[in-house]
């Protein structure tokens, strides 16, 4: 089936099998391997991207469902060498260790801050309930998002 979609501002068109997940489409067809797959049950959030501005789990979406949509992946967050304020805050606050959950965390953080530019610690923690991190204990991820909010609001 033919699909056309925009990923990180670029237009793509491909023939895909209906069973191809959006996560696999991004990874295997577009070679955007920053979107990771960590589970089978829509639980871990490593595959989070934004679809028409909303954070979604790309492992639980078929590529065909994204036909005509506007997608941003982790690769689309930085502006060239200049990191997005969320990415920058993750670096400054040691909000990542092995880096595997990080793309999903950053994309979810973008949704949290879009809907709530001044979140409390509790709201950030609640907003991250769909993302597992096994390395950081979330402590520095929460701090990173707190600082990102400040940076974006400046």
């Amino acid at each position, binding site marked *: 089936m033919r699909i056309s979609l925009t990923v990180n501002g670029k237009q793509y068109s491909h023939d895909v099998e209906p069973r191809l997940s959006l996560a696999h489409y991004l990874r295997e067809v577009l070679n955007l391997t920053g979107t990771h797959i960590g589970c089978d049950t829509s639980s*871990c959030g490593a595959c989070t991207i934004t679809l028409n501005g909303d954070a979604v789990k790309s492992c639980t979406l078929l590529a065909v469902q994204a036909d005509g949509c506007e997608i941003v992946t982790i690769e689309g967050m930085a502006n060239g060498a200049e*990191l997005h304020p969320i990415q920058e805050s993750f*670096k*400054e606050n040691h909000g990542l*260790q*092995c880096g595997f*959950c990080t793309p999903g965390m950053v994309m979810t953080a973008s949704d949290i801050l879009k809907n709530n530019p001044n979140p409390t610690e509790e709201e950030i*923690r609640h907003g991250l309930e769909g993302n597992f991190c096994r*390395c950081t204990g979330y402590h520095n991820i929460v701090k990173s998002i707190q600082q990102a909010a400040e940076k974006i609001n400046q």
Partner: protein
Amino acid sequence: MGSYIGKSVKRREDARFLKGEGKYTDDIKLPNMTHMAFVRSPYASANVLSVDTSEAEKAEGVVAVFTAEDGCGQYGVPCGWQVNFKNGETMREPQHPLLAKDKIRHVGEPVAIVIAETQALARDAAELVAVEYEELPAVTNPKEAMKDGAPKVHDQFPDNMAFDWCIGNDRAEVEAALEKAHHVTELEFINQRLAPNAIEPRSYIADYDVNGDKWTLYTSTQNPHLIRLLMCAFVLGIPEHKVRVVSYDVGGGFGSKIYHYTEEALVTWVSREIARPVKWTADRSEAFLMDAHGRDHVVKSKMGFDKEGHIVAHLTDEYCSMGAYLSTFAPAIPTYLHGTLFQGLYKTPLIHLNVVAPFTHTVPVDAYRGAGRPEATYLIERLVSKGAKEMGMDPAEIRFKNFIEPFDGVNQPGYQTQVALQYDSGNYAPALEKALDAIGYKDFRKEQAEARKNGKLLGLGISTWIEGCGIAPSAVVGALGARAGLYEVGHVRVQPTGKVSVYTGTHSHGQGHETAFAQFVADRLGIPMDDVEIIHGDTEQVAFGMGTYGSRSLSVGGSAIVKSIEKVLEKGAKIAAHKLEASVEDLEYAGGKWTVKGTDKSISFGDVSLTAYVPHDYPQGLEPGLDFSSFYDPANFTFPFGAHLAIVEVDQDTGKVDLKRFVTCDDVGNIINPMIVDGQIHGGVVQGIGQALLEEVVFDESGQMITGSYMDYAMPRADDLPMIETHNTVTPCPHNPLGVKGAGEAGAIGSTPAVVNAVVDALWHLGVRDIQMPLTPQRVWKAMQQ
């Protein structure tokens, strides 16, 4: 210069991860690559009656189908540690086949593999392999496995026992002391089985080069060289020098990616059979079924105290599951990484631990963050807190009373434990004092009483911990049964321009070696960090190495690098002396240059480096080049320690535990990068909290894992947790050049008993003395009802 050590330098690895440009194994795509899918047993225990691959072979896109009949890895996967029976008898060691032939011993055990052009087609075809099984009874609990008539895991070992081992003082002596003790506290519980759950599932790609008769194996492992050695020498019988093992970015390990897994050997074997690259990446469901689990001890403990609260004796009996086969380090975990920590931080004069290690119809158990040491700490710290409360003593006070006196390992000797090891240095009271101050311990009891009046159940739990890490002196572990040395390799290659490439045999999968190692290398050489690059994870670049686990990277791997730096500086001094027309003795090295003492005559590191590679005006008889590799074998383990405190509130109606605060004061020796150390503590603490409150692998009667996905296996999420308040003290390690001890496992070792002690403290007045982990709302509520 000391301009980097001790600073929270931001990590250089972050940029690639934050931009989605990390290079994890599953991100690699090779030309002409095929994909592997497994046919796995749905039963825990069964006879395989027949395997029919004919339909699968005909399916779309299928390249090949293999079963055990095809002769892959006929020797099976080896075990790397031999623990003998206490009577001297040799450990029972079953073969661990790559593909099951006649018999199934745990759910998920592979029976066949399908290779196809795409991942989807491989899976489609795997469904067409018809396997006929005869289901047999299974046993999953290690204590049950030891009962007469229990289902047999391996027919040749009818009693299911891998070994029966003990450590410490004479049992009769310990028992006699317990008889005479003023008070004896007892605990019986299960230190439950955990699934490590690194968020990156294991992934392997093998690429066979027909012309060179060579392989490249890309693998998500914590120790590429060890995998190469085990796989080449023991599993496949292929020449080691023909195999390159590459482990670029790895998405967390926590122990589960130490071991040599059957799938690694299978892709390597298949790649030559079909002369094409083969990839396999685990699903989370496969990870639950196949990644080695942790813990799984059935424990019975007694601790005796005198009138004043001094511990007089400690006796523990355990059944510790090995699972269906012996994984790489499995036998060492409940023995030498567990029993050797039974001294804790206390002067306990008499200790005895007996471990019976059975096989069960479950996936193998091996090291998971802390590996044996969390289990030791959990039972000791639960016993101490419970004993104190039973005797009406303050649980902090009883700890101060029993702590080993301070010793720095230089002016005072190390502390000889009752359980084989000698602690390097320790000063335990200040860590606990600092943590108690931070949490406001003095005021807490008032607050607790106040809260109780308002129907709120508050509790505070204390745990102190010690661990033996920096694994490990080869001769010591060799004597204890390790089939490998546990030294490390550090290679410092100074380039002609004075830039430095450092090759380490350790492996970073989140620990930030690229940054922290560069910090101390730059400081030691007095050059900018930007001039130092750290390289790891490739057997063709790094000479050798034992990998990363057991909080060993900095203390062992870092020390190997320091050794090479010293050699660089020693040779550099000769070149500098020649250029400065002075004697080596008259030179001092600081700030990246050699200076003739008392003069302003100097030569920079860069100039000396260039001279080493352009040796025109050069000391006679000295080899050109500035390139040194060193093996460092530590003199001892390192023994970090600390105190962890938790405050919880228990919901009276539902039994739900709300973790309000968590305070740590850890002593991991000298600290290179405080930001990274704190991060390690945070993560470890939360894994330990996960064990205390949420995590548990559960099997049903037939051996099915009923917690085989994230829908049923609960792990900590961001909103289950408070901020982790970290503090530290510094007691340097006396026997390695950096004075460092290790921080990777610390958090997971100390936190679990702190949380459980806090919950029991909250409910003590209701008569609750112990609750089985994880402390689910159901378990806590039921404990409150009794």
